[in-house]
């Protein structure tokens, strides 16, 4: 892996999402997670308020002070928060448009309180809600970035609808946040291994993984697995094979002016310091080429696939990914 030859302004960050397993079990406190982030050498930190802040959406002054104190103590800068839109908050009715916009405004306020300039809009945010929330985001000095999360990609109708809104309104507050789960070249083995432990038939697992790795047509995988006598475990794996996608990282290039932050999703950092399924060298090269000016933020998601059989060590996984990113960004050799 050769460090980039051209200068760039890409910085590293860690999303606290990465340490969710330890935080869930209370083997790490929120401050421990903040300290672990700082220990990677990443200057940026991303927080999922609904995960890390008891009492959300009410942020006490005490919490805001504690958070800001940690930022000083550990030398970190908040770079993004993640917002969810609970359109199904009520069992008997969909959240109205105005209520949805109010929910986004609330989350923009939370980001401002935490000192974060970017809010991730989860992929289910409707384009019209983004458009309606944009003026408030501008007013508050926050960017609202739609996550481009697998199985969506830059040519998908849902993303095209969002792009239409972003270009039509021209709001500087709106943009995109690629999730690198759209650049899964090889099927994550932590996922297929888990299916095997759950009793999946090895021949069907091989078929699913091979179809994915050949970048074959996965649309009817569940049906084929059904024709071959598979059951719920095999169906689950087949569905996952339709929910990771491989697209060329260079598909981000035409959208670079809209891209403000990257969720550096990963499933398994090997002992050799590479991600098993996602070619980060290619992704970083594209970001450098496109002049990306923002943070690559670690988002570890392997824990859910190994928790049944192995100890989860999110701290080590994030450490390895950050070391890889530092190398690819030319910070270290």
């Amino acid at each position, binding site marked *: 892996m050769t460090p980039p030859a051209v200068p760039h302004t890409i910085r590293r960050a860690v999303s606290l*999402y990465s340490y*969710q397993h330890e*935080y*869930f*079990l*209370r083997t790490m406190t929120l401050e421990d997670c903040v300290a672990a982030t700082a220990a990677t050498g990443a200057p940026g930190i991303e927080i*999922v308020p*609904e*995960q*890390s802040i*008891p*009492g*959300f959406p009410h942020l006490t002054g005490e919490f805001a002070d504690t958070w800001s104190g940690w930022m000083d103590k550990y030398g970190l800068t908040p770079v993004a928060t993640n917002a*969810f*839109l*609970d*359109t*199904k*908050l*009520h*069992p*008997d009715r969909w959240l109205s448009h105005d209520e949805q916009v109010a929910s986004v405004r609330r989350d923009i306020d939370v980001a401002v309180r935490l000192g974060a300039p970017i809010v991730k809009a*989860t*992929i*289910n945010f409707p384009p019209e809600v983004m458009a309606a929330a944009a003026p408030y985001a501008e007013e508050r000095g926050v960017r609202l970035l739609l996550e481009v999360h697998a199985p969506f990609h830059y040519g998908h109708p849902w993303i095209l609808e969002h792009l239409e809104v972003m270009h039509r309104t021209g709001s500087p507050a709106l943009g995109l946040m690629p999730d690198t789960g759209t650049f899964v070249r090889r099927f994550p083995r932590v996922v297929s291994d888990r299916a095997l432990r759950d009793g999946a038939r090895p021949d069907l697992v091989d078929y699913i993984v091979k179809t994915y790795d050949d970048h074959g047509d996965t649309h009817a995988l569940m049906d084929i697995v059904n024709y071959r006598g598979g059951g719920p475990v095999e169906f689950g794996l087949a569905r996952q094979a339709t929910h990771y996608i491989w697209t060329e990282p260079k598909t981000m290039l035409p959208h670079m002016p809209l891209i403000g932050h990257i969720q550096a999703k990963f499933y398994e950092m090997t002992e050799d310091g590479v991600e098993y399924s996602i070619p980060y060298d290619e992704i970083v090269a594209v970001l450098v080429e496109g002049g990306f000016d923002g943070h690559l933020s670690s988002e570890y998601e392997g*824990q*859910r696939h190994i*928790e*049944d059989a192995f100890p989860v060590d999110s701290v080590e996984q994030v450490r390895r990914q950050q070391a890889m990113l530092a190398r690819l960004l030319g910070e270290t050799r």
Partner: protein
Amino acid sequence: MYDRYIICEDGFRVRDDGRPGGRVEVRMPYYRGLALSMVEAVDLVLDGRPVPPERTTFTVHGNTYTFAELPAVTHDRWEMGERAELAFQTDEPLAPGEHEVTVSVRLRISYMPVPGGGRDSKRLVLAS
């Protein structure tokens, strides 16, 4: 995700109001907290027999709700990793010793077309 951590291994005990039944501590199998209105079910099966939701109550950080109340509770949340207490009534007092406890959690997650949640089953020893 987190299925194996739904039922807490400690905290299984008899009720504190003298009625027959017990209490078990449970966690939500999800990576963020949710308003209680989106917790569609926390179903309990004790020693192979389902305990009807009408005979259970749900307590988060000191606030107790019936399952009939939960759909309207949008102002209180089950936090990520929080141990909620599921209290249940039975006809007869629980026998001392080991019991098979199964809990299924069903969550309404807006970005998913199908229900979220999970299921866990453990043999727990009744604390005296």
